Each structure stands twice: as C-alpha cells, then as structure tokens.
C-alpha cells in the first residue's frame, strides 16, 4: 500500500457515505409503510461497466444481489453513446429488478467531462401497482399488476409524462406512487451529482482505478475468508408450510478454495399462488445469510459478491419463471437463510445459529369490501410482529426480533391513532423459545379487534405454522405460529384471506426460534433467571430442562 491507496480508500469511504445519504433521503420521502418500517429500498453506485462499487446497508437484504445484477442487465440494453446527461432508466420487471412488481429500479448514467463514467441506481417499494394488490392470490404475474419493461423514465431531464400517467392510472394509490417515483428520481440525481463532485474534488477523470481497487480488495478479502473454511459439499432439506401443500426447499452447498456454490436442485415446483420466488431474490437472501458468517465486515460490491454463485433448476419454486405469480416472494425467500444454514452448520458447527421464525410476520389489515359503499371506515395497515430468532452458538436467540429481514415493528399508540383497531395485548409468549443450551428467542402474543365494531380483513402470507423452527445440535424446536379468532376459535392456516367480525378478537401468536445444544446442558442459573423473568414456566423448567426453580 502507498499514499495513492490511502487516497483510494478515502474515496471508497466517500462512496459508502454517498450511498448511505441517498438511502436515508429515499426512506424519509417514501409513502409505502413497508419502506418506512423496513427500509425496503436500496441505493448504489456503479462503474461504467455496470460493476457495483458501493451499496447502502438498508433494512432488507432482498436488494443485495438483485441490484448488482439488475444494473448490469439494464446497462446492457443501452449503448453508452446513446445515453445523455439527465437520462434515467426504469423497470419493475420482477426478473430484472427485485422479485416483484412493487419494486421500482431506476438507473442514471453519471457524466463527467462529457463522458459516462458510472451509474447511480436506486430501488424502492411502491404502495400499489393495481392487479389483485399485495397478496398471494394472483394466479400469474398478469393478475399482480402493471409490469414495466426497461424504458426511459427521464429523457435529458424531461419526465416521460405518458409513463407516469400509465403508472398512476394503474394504481389504487396514484398520488403516493407519483410521490415515490419523484423521490426515486431525486435519489438518483443526488447520487450522480455527489459522484461527479467527488471526481472533481479528487481530480480524477475516470473511476477505473478506484473501481479496480474496491473490487479487488473486497474480492481478495472474501476469498481469504472462504479459503479458511473446510472444503466439501453439504446438503439440507427445509420443509415449509407453502400455500396449497407443504414444500421442500433443497440446497447443496459447495465450498471450494475460492468460491461458494449453492444449488437448489431437488426443490419443489411452483405454487399456483404468488409465493413463488425469482432466482435473483432467492439469491439475495441466500448470499446475505452466507455473508453474515463469511466476511461480514466487507462491504457489498461486485468484488465481495463475485465468489458466491447460486443456481437452481428453472421453475423450481426458488427459480420461478414468468409468468408465475411472485407478489409474496419474500415469504419463502426469507426462509432461504435457514435452508443454507442447515448446510453450513455441517461445515462450521460452532458458527451458525439455529432456525428462527425467519419469515416476516406481517399483518396486512384492510377495511371490509362493503365499507366503501356503506360509508364505513376505510383504512389499510401493514403491521409487523416478529417472532423469535434462532439461538446463536454462544448467545440465546433474540425475542420478537426480525431476521433475516431488518423490518421494524409497529408501535401500538401510533397504530391506534391512525386506524380503527384496538390492540389489547402484545406480550412475549412464554415457553415459545426453543429449549437448548442456548434458548431460542420468544415469539409474541398479539390480540387485535376493531375499535368501531366494523368487520375488517386480514391477508395472511406467513410460515412456520405447521413447520416450526428446528433446533440445532440437540436443541429443540421453537413453538409454531398460531392464528385464531377468539381463544376457542379453530386454528387458521398461514396463508389466505380472513374476515374478522366486528366483535371478534384476532389472536396472533408468532413463532419462537429453535434452541442450540441439548437443553440439559443449559446452566441452571440461566434457567432460573428465565423462570424469574417468566420467559420459561416453572413447569417447563422442570420437564424440559430438569431444573427445579
């Protein structure tokens, strides 16, 4: 290393700061609750070849590889010579952008001294794109809403007004969509302007040497981390609830000297409902999970992502092809970390957590359909109540905490202020954490009813109702999720529409994480502390852990 390299490092730090700036600005201006609560956006800077140099660390890992690949694809559609300053390109094609129609990807070429030197890109989740709306009920992509192929959204600073009109005309939330698209444009422009400023400040004409430095340093660091792992191939099958029937997710993990391969061969075929996952999205969560263990300190870019390769046979449920419905691709996409951790833990028994609730436990609530004509209260809420994470090799799991997504939970008071619901309970669910030497995180007990006596609707797409989070190395499973209307109501499945009567209470119990190591190896002190804190009942302490409180 020499002084030139410290300078390159300063510029690298600058790029990381720029993408974080872009990301924060986008989150603040966004209209979709999923963006606000989960930071479901991404922002990145790319070199002239479309290689990702820096990406904001945002709430959801679903954009990690998707954006890196999407910009390459989009850049490949247009020649550099036909790009003009002020152009911005757009697509929401799930197989190019981010796995479902709601995610809009924008890419803007950055000009410096008359030449394209790189790209600024961002993605954000828009509230509504028409079709059947966010839910698993579509039978193909055409049911799910408006699909926009790669096209020019802004031509030398002039907005494509027809395109904007089409987006608005195809949405239940036209004003919010328009606001979100303008926020995305501003985000792209900010990134492009900051990149050009930096090049002036540091007196560079191209990003080439900076790009090579970032990518090579990151690739080398990642390969060093991989080379420290044992070589071999490990298999795992994760059975999940699915919609119409249970689904097997299969993976083979191969660790070679300089790369990691994941192959989904053997995975069940497509669902008829919108829980199918395009491979770009499955790849994002898979690689995120691996990078949590292998080189987590290295920023995401083309170099750190390059050694990871994910494949799967076409039209297995983790490599859905058009026109499969994919609106709720996150439900199974977020299960892929547990799938690959089942492989990785065979190679690294002491580095990988047990299975967790994993899939986002969200509660999309809407007014009943007749409220519109009857003048009843109209509302739409997207509440999130996470389950527990799996126990870690040296720490208990986290209770009521999202993983792998970085979703935020909702606050009761602000929820009740904006929507006609009354939440009467939100507490940790005793004994739901999978027993083990390290205990899984606990799920929650949630009780919700209407505050006006009107019926309302719930659109479910959650997992771990029939297949709870398994423990690891002798640890026991966490409690499965459970959904009922009233304490005596029958158990409901994890997917589909539910109508909650005006006087009924929805009881929603989120799953616990699995335990790590045999429960009888848990320290009696820790068990007694759990009993004192009433996280574990005295009965379970005695029966499961063999500890008299």
């Amino acid at each position, binding site marked *: 290393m020499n002084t030139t390299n410290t300078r390159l490092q300063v510029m690298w730090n600058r790029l990381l*700061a720029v993408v974080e*700036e872009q990301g924060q600005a986008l989150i603040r201006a966004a209209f979709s609750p999923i963006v606000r609560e989960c930071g479901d956006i991404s922002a990145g800077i790319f070199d002239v070849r479309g290689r990702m140099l820096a990406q904001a660390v945002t709430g959801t890992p679903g954009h990690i590889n998707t954006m890196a690949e999407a910009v390459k694809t989009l850049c490949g559609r247009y020649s550099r010579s036909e790009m003009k300053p002020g152009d911005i390109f757009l697509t929401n094609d799930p197989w190019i952008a981010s796995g479902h129609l709601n995610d809009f990807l924008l890419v803007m070429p950055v000009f410096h001294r008359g030449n394209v030197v790189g790209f600024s890109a961002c993605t954000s989740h828009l509230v509504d794109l028409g079709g059947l709306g966010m839910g698993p009920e579509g039978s193909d992509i055409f049911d799910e809403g408006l699909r926009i192929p790669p096209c020019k959204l802004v031509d030398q600073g002039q907005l494509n007004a027809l395109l904007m009109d089409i987006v608005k005309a195809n949405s239940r939330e036209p004003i*919010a969509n328009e606001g979100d698209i303008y926020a995305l444009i501003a985000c792209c422009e900010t990134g492009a302007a900051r990149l050009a400023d930096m090049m002036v400040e540091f007196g560079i004409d191209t990003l080439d040497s900076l790009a090579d430095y970032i990518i090579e340093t990151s690739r080398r660091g990642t390969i060093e981390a991989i080379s420290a792992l044992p070589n071999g191939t490990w298999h795992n099958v994760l059975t999940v609830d699915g919609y119409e029937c249970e689904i097997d997710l299969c993976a083979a993990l191969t660790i070679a000297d300089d790369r990691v391969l994941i192959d989904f061969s053997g995975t069940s075929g497509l669902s008829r409902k919108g829980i199918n996952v395009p491979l770009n999205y499955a790849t994002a969560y898979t690689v995120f999970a691996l990078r949590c263990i292998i080189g987590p300190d290295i920023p995401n870019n083309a170099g750190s992502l390059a050694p990871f390769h994910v494949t799967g046979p076409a039209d297995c449920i983790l490599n859905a092809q058009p026109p499969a419905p994919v609106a709720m691709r996150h439900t199974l996409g977020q299960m892929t970390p547990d799938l690959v951790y089942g492989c990785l833990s065979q190679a690294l028994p002491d580095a990988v957590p047990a299975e967790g609730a994993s899939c986002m436990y969200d509660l999309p609530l809407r007014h009943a359909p007749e409220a519109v004509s009857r003048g009843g209260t109209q509302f739409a809420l997207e509440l999130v109540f996470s389950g527990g994470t799996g126990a870690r090799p040296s720490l208990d799991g986290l209770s009521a905490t999202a993983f792998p997504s970085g979703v935020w*939970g909702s606050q009761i*008071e602000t929820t009740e202020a904006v929507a006609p619901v009354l939440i009467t309970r939100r507490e940790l669910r005793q004994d739901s954490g999978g027993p083990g030497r390290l205990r899984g995180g606990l799920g929650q007990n949630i009780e919700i009813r209407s505050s006006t006596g009107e019926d309302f609707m719930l659109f479910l797409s959650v997992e771990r109702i029939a297949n709870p989070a398994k423990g690891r190395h002798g640890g026991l499973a966490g409690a499965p999720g459970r959904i009922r209307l009233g304490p005596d109501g029958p158990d409901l499945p994890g997917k589909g529409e539910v109508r909650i009567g005006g006087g009924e209470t929805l009881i929603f119990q989120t799953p616990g994480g699995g335990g790590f190591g045999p429960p009888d190896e848990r320290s009696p002190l820790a068990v007694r502390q759990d009993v004192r*804190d009433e996280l574990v009942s005295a009965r379970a302490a005695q029966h499961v852990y063999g500890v008299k409180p």
Partner: protein
Amino acid sequence: MHNHAGLRLAVDIGGTFTDTVLMDGQSNILATTKTPTTPDNPTVGALIGAKRVLDDANAGFPQVSGFIHGTTLATNALIERRGASVATITTDGFRDILEIGYERRYSQYDINLVKPDLLVPRARAFTIGGRMDARGDELTPLDVAGMDDLVRRIEDSDAQAVAVCLMHSYANPKHELALRDQLLRALPDLAISLSHEVSPEAREFDRLCTTIANAYIQPQMAGYLADFQSRFAAEGLSCPILMMTAGGGMTTLETAARLPIRLVESGPAGGAILAARIAAETGARAVTSFDMGGTTAKLCLIDAFRPQTARRFEIARAARFIKGSGMPVRIPVIEMIEIGAGGGSIARVDRLGRLQVGPESAGAQPGPAAFGNGGRAATVTDADVVQGLIEPGRFAEGRLTIDTAAAEQAITLEIGSALDLAPDLAARGLSEIVDESMAAAGRMHAVESGKELATRVMIAFGGNGPLHATRVARRCQVDQIVIPKDPSVGSAVGFLYAPVAFEIVRSRYATLDQPDLDGLNAFFDEMTAEALAAVRAGAPEAELSIRKQAFMRYHGQGHEIEIALPDRALGPADIEILRRDFESEYSRLFRRAVPGMAIEILNWSVEVSSPAPDLSRVPDVAQQRTARPCGHRRILCDVSGHWCDAGIYDRSALEPGDSLRGPALIAEPQTTTFVSADFQASVDGGGNLWLNRIQEDAE
C-alpha cells in the same frame, strides 16, 4: 474589589475537566479556568473552579447575580449504570413494551449482536388494568382493586423508583395521576416518574424508555442538586442557580430535580449556543458548529442563529455510534451528530489492509502514545504530533510533555509497517481518514436535514476543533472558519448566552382537512400555561416569548416536518396557511410537494423563553496588518504532502486586524489552531479568528 455588580458565572462539569467561566454584566469574559473534575463529589471541583475565577477577577460570591450549571452527571449515571433500581408499571397486556421495542437488530450483518440493556429486567416489569384509547377516552377504568397486589409486588422487588407509562396517557393522564396518588399513599418514599409529564408523546416504547431514564437518575440528581445549592449558598451565593438543559435553555433547580432527563447532554448544547451566539455577532446566517474533543466530535447545524433541534436522541449505545443500539430518549434537544473521532481515537489496519480510525479511544488514561503514559496505540493526536502540528513544549499549557518519539513509534508499529509507509506518510493517511469520516458524517447530517454543508461557515472549538478545522472544512468544501475566543471552554461560555426556556412537545393526532380547532386551542392553552409556569420561576420579570410548532407529514409517511405556528388561537383561515407552509418546506426538503395527498399532524410543541443576553455586533476592524511569527516549525503540509516551514504565532499577541497566511500554527494555552497552506487567518474586532480558504484563481 472592582465594581462588579451583575457578575455571571457558568460551571460545566465534564467527565475529566470542570470548566468555569466568569462574565461581567456586559458579557465580557473576565476569567476562565479548567480544573480536574472530582468524581466522588463533583461539587467540590465546582467550588474550586468558581473560587479561582472569582479570585482572578478580584470578586466574591455575593457579587454573582447569575449562576448557570451544566453537568454530565446525569449522562454518566446512565452510561455507567449507576442509577436507582427502577420498576415499571404499564397497562395490562403490555408488560413487554421494553423487551419488544422496535423488534429490530441495529446491525444487519452481526448475528451475534446483543441488544442494549434498558435498565429494567422483566421481573420488575408490572402491569395494571385500565385502558384509554388514542383520543383519550376511557375504555376501562383503572383497576383500583388490583392496587394492593401491585404495591406488594413493588415492595418485594426492592425498587427505589417507579416509571409509570400507561397506554395513551399523553392523551389523557387521568389513570397515571390516580395511580401515583394511590402508590404514594402506600409507599410515601417511592420516587415516581409519570410518562405524560416526562415525555407526553405517542410511541409507547420511546415514552417508556424516557420515563425509565428519568426515574433511574431522579433520586441521585435530586440529592446532588440540593447539596450543590446548599454548598454554594454556604459560600455566600445568593442568586438562584439555573440548570442548563439539552434543549439549550436554562431551567430552575426544581424543574431539574423533577425532570433530570432534561439535563442529559447539556454540555454539548452549550457549545451549540456559543456557536449560535457567534453567528449572530458576526452575522453568519448559515453555520456548522464543529466541536472536537478527546474522544468524539460533534456537529450542529445553525440557521438564522438558531441551533437545529430534534425531539429524540439515543443514550448509552451498546455499539458505539451505531444508530438504534441505544436507549431512545424523547425530549426536546439541540440536534447534534456525534462521531467517534477525537484526539484519542485509535487507528488500526484491518485484515483487508484498510486503515480504520475510531471509534475506540485511548481516553484520558493511558491516552495517546505521545502523552508518555504508557499508551501504545496510534491515535489521531499521535499523527498530529508526527506531522509537526503540535508543539511538544506548549501542549496543555506546558503541563504535559509530548513524547514525539513515542508517537512516531506507535504510528510506525501500528500503521506504517502494516502499510509499508514511512511514519510521516502513515500519519498523514491517518489524518485523512479521520478528517474524511468527520466530513462525511457532517455531509450526511446536512442531507438528512435537507441542507447544504458547503455554503456554511464552520465555527470550530473544543480541544481539537481548531487543530483539525481547515482539514475537515476542505473536505466539506467549506471556505470560512471561525475560531472563537477561549475555544477550549466553549460549552461553559455558551451557558452564559442561554435563555431561561422550557419546551413541551405533546401528541394529538389531527388531519389538516378536519382539525378540531376549539379542542386544539384549548390543548395549546394548557401546554402554554405549563411551560410558562416553569419559565416564570426562573425569570420572574423577563418579557417572555412563545414559539409554537406543528409536526406534520403526508398521510402514509413516517417522517414529520416541523412547521412554525402563529402565537395566537388558530382559526379556519390558518389551515390553508399551514398547508402552504408545509408544502413549501416539503418541497425544499424533497424537491417537490405531493399535491392532493392528505396531510396529518402528530405532535405539537410550545416553547416559552426569556430573551438571551444583549447582543453586541462585532465591530469592524480599522485596518489590516500582517502579523509576525514568533517562531517557525517544520510541519508536513496537508496540501502538498511535503515538509515545509510553518510560522508559529501566539494567539494572545494577535490583535484585531492582524492577518497571516498558512501554513501556520496559532498557539494558545489549551489548544492550537492549524492554518493550512490554502488558508489565511485574520482577527476580527471581537477577537475571533477567521480562517478563509484562499481561492485558487486568486493565486
């Protein structure tokens, strides 16, 4: 003794030093001192400092007519976990507000992260029946029958203080008040903090955390403040003592003892007030204050002479400086970003060969290697020493000898050899990284606030602010820097410019299309009366001003924008004005308003304040003179990267109108101002140092 009627005294007790400043009635600084903090009883150190400045000015306590105190005691009690044992009481069904929080991991890739310790274990989390709705209507009465059981559980838990946070109490405090009365009847010595008094805003997790933090430090702070007052009274102080708050106003001892959470982070607030004052005196309308000390740097944006404010911050972060890893506190504060970058910040080379600086700090002990106290880590100060920017003989008034060889050795061992760089270039690289991280944090903060950094004047102070100002400024494209007088005791000086003030932010949901104006006006009257009472006690005769704001957003968004309201009852005509103001502020922040989208208002605020001390504009300087250096030093030029000669100047010898060109070092007892080669320095009529970037085309 001189005729010193109306002396004003400020005491800022920090973790390491207690800063004391004495001012006369015309706002002239008469004396300042920095004395060691006495952790066993900080009042002892405060008395030593106060006596010293009074002696220096040949005056005594009876002549002091204004006394302002700020302390990190409240902050430290929270960080060091030295508070009371607290129990919580929440509404039945919501025992786990604290455990559940926002259900969030603060670090995306860290599967082994540990959540912050929020002070109350689940075993001391109790509940009581009774429920309000979001409008403040009672759905279920308070469960009076359950009270005996609750009292018994609190007694059994050995809690010394209780934090009560019932659902929607900001909208109707009836249950919280009734619960307090019942508890005090059974347990008269129990310290009780009620959430609707501490932080009357919606969002139960934030409100509970704030109430817990208040309850946690309340017994200790109430005792400290009573003792502080009686010891100073015994010395002859007859004026009331006012306490500095995080919001940048002063409050009475009574309010401070009841709501000590308001005292947290009051020291840095003093620095921002000083910067705002200097902005006003020099007419700088867009300013960034840059306060760099031994472990952290703090930046605050100041527009039209008002520091930017916020309603929420975090304390005691589990992972230092990572957002979301601490305990949220929701009170009105001067908004500052804090970066783990100070003189003691430690540099290292990571496994990718990247040079990283901070946030770990060598602290006061052992401190940088250059201090010769056995520190081996390479720090920011060591890099400055190796580059020749710190004069070994003059550091800290000559009380601390600088060991240049130790600094060079640490830089070589920790950085130079790993990167194959000579020590001077390794030192320069270290400075570049830390200066860039401060500049990046500043730019990010400006962007989040919808503001530009480059067009601002930087006002730099703190022990290391003047040393790093030009280097950080260049990276933010800032062209003008002001170094005030007495920059190393900036916060204490700032205290003396603060008004007596109290701000209340309270939640009340409304949509702009259907506001309940009568209800809203009554709501404001009540809040105003409460704030007025708090301020009147500290400023009995002053003419008070009232400032009202609404926190608005588009329906569906999560981020609110503050909009000023007129100080009168709101009428139907105000609705359109509010809409217009919101849309224009929104388009300033996000480039474009969103016409047709519904607008909602979540919170409302009232601030009552006394006028700040009279302002004197900095007089013009009659003529410019070129100052002559009192010596020279070899330094590594941060612009050219080559060793060169820099002039050394004594700040106390510089007079208004003096100017000089970089590279230069301007020394004063507690700090050094480094004038880079691309800056020139001049002294204005008020004694402030101005550093102006020399425009390239003027060369």
